[in-house]
């Protein structure tokens, strides 16, 4: 008799604790092998990095509030933009998605844990030294790298020793990501409960399965690029150093061969999340499940052949520009299909708008804006006007900050009752949503105008004609930052303390999936024996 079965129907009751051997105190976390504990640690780590990287953004926006250099000298400004980008991408967004995967993938496929529980521990704890080495760059001679997150050569060859520690930090984070990805793939492919066919899997698992392959494919490419930078810096090679016959453009090709799939690594899991939240609150099955799976796969495959759309301005042959322009705009097709499917899912549903649904609809809104600006940038002749300007900054903040982050907020509100056993406060959630949504757009929409008018990105100072929109953007950015502080103190903290209404086993009327078949909070161990599933693979029947 499985523990899960015992708990059918009486949500909230933790099953008989024959697992008293579970470590307690600090050992529980340092030696953690439980996917739920590790998931929690990933999420807390990511949130910490979000706040650190966010604080840097606040300083950047303060400097840009007026023309002239008020707070920072240009070196410091460049260091901050670089570290902001690296911390947000490698410290906040990527680990947060892994945290969600840790919590939810085993629960969704009916597995007792991740396939490699100890490797899971390692892949989390590697992040701590990596983060210290990354942020520690500020305290090294010469300060943090000031190359931008793209670390283009030969500028990277001019940096101080913090560049080296950043390179090692990237190696470690890459290793961590690859381990996480292997774990997710093996868990999904090998540990699914009987009856959980691949084409019955929840969309979140599908999106992560594909994302994990992307990670395994491209993290080594990034490692290669930064390692070549390292040997150029110290061991006399000249891969990227033109002065010795090297090729600085080759760095960009290698970097973006990693970089473009990377941006999809940061959005595909979000697609999966939204594909689960929308049907739950529309009380209607996801429209076009099969085409959603194919669309994600198509995007993932195409993402490998579009990288040079980041390099239209380096100067390439006409045929090269045409190839990369056409493949890039092609990606917009499966992306559009996804948006249409979400809309069709909502169509003639029976919708309610609790906070997860608000963030999900907000996600679609900002993601579509970001997708459109991507389409504009993909048109090579227009990119001549927009490359290297604030338009690009607007584009990737719409798809990353807003879209990826909002998807994670949606999922947090959606799944936190299962994690904590208590409901978040709906009013606080709604305030968090509207505050974030409005301030985000105030901060980033004017950046489209700045970019069109020609304001370059990564500028510590700007011509005074750009002042007005910069001030609007700064005010929006500070409000957006404040909204996340509110989120922590009024939403996250109460949940961590267990304050709030007791969460039922299935808090959402329309939610489907195995995670809702276990009590809230999910007991330390779930699905220790494979559950027996109904034909839809969404219910445990024995």
């Amino acid at each position, binding site marked *: 008799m499985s523990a899960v079965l015992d708990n059918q129907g009486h949500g909230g009751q933790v099953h008989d604790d024959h697992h008293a051997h579970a470590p307690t105190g600090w050992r529980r976390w340092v030696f953690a092998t439980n996917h739920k504990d590790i998931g929690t640690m990933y999420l807390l780590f990511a949130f910490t990095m979000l706040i650190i990287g966010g604080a840097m953004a606040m300083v950047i926006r303060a400097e840009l509030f007026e023309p002239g250099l008020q707070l920072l000298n240009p070196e410091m400004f460049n260091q901050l933009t670089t570290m902001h980008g690296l911390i947000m991408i490698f410290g906040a967004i990527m680990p947060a998605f892994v945290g969600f995967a840790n919590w939810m993938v085993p629960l969704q496929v009916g597995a007792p844990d991740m396939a490699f529980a100890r490797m899971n521990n390692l892949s989390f704890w590697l992040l701590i030294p990596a983060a210290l080495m990354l942020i520690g760059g500020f305290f090294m001679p010469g300060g943090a790298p000031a190359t931008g997150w793209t670390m283009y050569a030969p500028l990277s060859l001019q940096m101080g020793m913090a560049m080296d520690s950043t390179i090692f930090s990237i190696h470690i984070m890459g290793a961590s990501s690859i381990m996480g990805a292997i774990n997710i793939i093996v868990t999904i492919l090998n540990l699914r409960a009987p009856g959980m066919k691949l084409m019955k899997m929840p969309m979140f698992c599908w999106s992560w399965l594909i994302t994990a392959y992307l990670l395994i494919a491209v993290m080594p490419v990034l490692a290669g690029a930064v390692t070549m930078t390292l040997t150029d810096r110290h061991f006399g090679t000249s891969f990227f150093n033109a002065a010795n016959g090297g090729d600085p453009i080759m760095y960009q090709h290698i970097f973006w061969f990693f970089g473009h799939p990377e941006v999809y690594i940061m959005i595909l899991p979000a697609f999966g999340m939204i594909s689960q939240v929308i049907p739950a609150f529309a009380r209607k099955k996801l429209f076009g499940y099969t085409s959603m799976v194919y669309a994600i796969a198509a995007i993932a495959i195409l993402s490998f052949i579009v990288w040079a759309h980041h390099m239209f301005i380096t100067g390439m042959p006409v045929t090269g520009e045409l190839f990369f322009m056409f493949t890039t705009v*092609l990606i917009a097709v*499966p992306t559009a299909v996804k948006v249409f499917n979400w*809309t069709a899912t909502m169509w003639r549903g029976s919708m309610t708008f609790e906070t997860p649904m608000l963030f999900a609809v907000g996600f679609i809104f900002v993601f*579509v804006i970001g997708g459109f600006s991507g389409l504009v940038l993909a048109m090579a002749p227009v990119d001549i006007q927009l490359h290297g300007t604030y338009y690009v900054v607007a584009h990737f903040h719409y798809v990353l900050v807003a879209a990826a982050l909002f998807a994670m907020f949606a999922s947090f509100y959606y799944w936190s009752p299962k994690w904590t056993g208590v409901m978040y406060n709906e009013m606080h959630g709604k305030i968090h949503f509207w505050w974030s949504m409005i301030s985000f757009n105030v901060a980033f929409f004017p950046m489209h105008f700045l970019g069109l*008018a020609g304001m370059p990105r990564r500028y510590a100072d700007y011509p005074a004609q750009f002042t007005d*929109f910069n001030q609007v953007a700064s005010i929006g950015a500070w409000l957006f930052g404040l909204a996340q502080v509110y989120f922590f103190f009024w939403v996250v903290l109460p949940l961590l303390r267990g304050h709030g209404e007791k969460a039922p086993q299935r808090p959402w009327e*329309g939610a489907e999936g195995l995670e809702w078949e276990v009590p809230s909070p999910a007991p330390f161990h779930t699905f220790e024996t494979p559950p027996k599933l109904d034909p839809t693979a969404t219910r445990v029947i024995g």
Partner: protein
Amino acid sequence: MINNIQARLASALRFPLILLCAWFSVSAWAVNSLPGGPALLELNLQPPVTAIARDQAWLNDLLMIVCTVVFIGVFGVMFYSIWKHRKSVGHKAATFHESVAIEITWTIVPFVIIVLMAFPATKLIVAAKDTTNADLTVKVTGYQWKWGYDYLNGEGQGIAFLSTINPKMREFAAVGARGAPIPDNYLLDVDHPLVVPVNKKVRIITTSVDVIHSWAVPALGVRQDAIPGFVRDVWFRAEKVGTYYGDCTELCGKEHAFMPVVVKVLSDDDYTKWVAGEHQKLAAGSNASSAPVASK
């Protein structure tokens, strides 16, 4: 037609924006728009002065319109649904959840729209890449943090000089751009602008001696990375006499924000006079404004 709609939209938007921003602008930045450079509260690309830049702007407007129409379509449907298909108004959920025909339709339709939009883009790429038959060829070299200009070919051949930001601007910046009211060309003033004749095809060859820079002038529709160890070329044919402003747009180190590009477009006569003056200076040996770049 497209430009018309765009212009009307922009002017409709501008007034509320001005109000909004006037309210925000606590500081006293009494600046005006800079002809040939950034304008106050500009919502779109800078006014083009080359055929290529005009086509870029046209393509951008076309994309904006297509995107706006699709946006209104998609969100129209979605918000209608949000309004009508809510549980609170008693709507019961339907059960449909797939349709191959619909999926195929909404895969093909965006595909066709996108390919149609990419065709004018293709023509424009080919045109922008054709750097043959230039009347004047100038080599542009990126330095940390200034530009070098060498007139390689055409009228003015042999002229060479460096172009550095007006040090006054850099001082303004360092003290937070306070004190004396900053000029309209704040950060966009250089000692020696690139000087070219109007209506002539100018070919720009870029390279760099240290790190990657990018030579960009929005009004001319030109942006090209300057890469150490490599040469790349672009071209423009300015149709109007005037001064046009641009920037370095590839992060190149600490003074990246302080190496503007200024291009002065002169009438044929004025250009000839300018060339004569430069040659005279060269001959006199007092190259006050003509530090030869080649010696670097």
